[in-house]
């Protein structure tokens, strides 16, 4: 998993959803983790967005283009 310079842990609720949807351990997820490195395709990306909507809050489709990292998702949910 790409750790990058920002190794803060993601918020626990988001980490739980990401782990459930991607099969990647929550402990391996960081704000700097790229969505590309999660290996998700477009359908899986949409499933992830739906799961985040159901568990936390909806991210509008018009913001999808700005989601490159887990940290970007965190900022949208803040």
């Amino acid at each position: 998993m790409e750790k990058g310079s920002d190794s803060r842990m993601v918020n626990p609720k988001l980490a739980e959803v990401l782990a459930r949807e991607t099969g990647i351990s929550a402990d391996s997820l960081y704000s700097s983790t790229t969505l590309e490195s999660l290996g998700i395709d477009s359908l899986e990306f949409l499933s992830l967005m739906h799961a985040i909507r159901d568990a936390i809050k909806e991210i509008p489709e018009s913001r999808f283009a700005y989601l490159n990292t887990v940290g970007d998702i965190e900022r949208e949910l803040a």
Partner: protein
Amino acid sequence: MTTFHVEKWATFHRDAHPLFDMHWKELALDQAKIPLGLDSARFQVLCDQGLLHIVTARKAGVVIGYFVAIVMPHLHYKDAGLMAFTDMYFIRPGCRKGGCGVKLFTEAERTLRERGVVKAYLSTKVHQDHTQLFEKLGWRLSDKSFCKVLA
């Protein structure tokens, strides 16, 4: 980091050129009879007339994907407003993870709306079928198209 941009034909053609052959080889039918021959001059005319809508996906400045549509009033519904007729879309193999396809289409949709487009059309290849994705993005299956080599 992948970023999405509305672009003009000239810059798009200059920077996306390496992808066109890749796109054609992966998706075009009847390649033995119908070679790739993108008519850049005609695309430029369409662009000059304000009829093109191009959205690119760029990674570190390099074009890794694109969506191109022709935007004009429908010939059958001239008073219904602008409509977008998708000409082509592609994402470079190896860059298709992370929801790049979803982002390209949602960005295309957002920018087409911003431009005043009221309805958009697109198709998918039978041999690389994206029906499920498009339906999840709210598109409705409305037509089936056919082709036949005649000469």
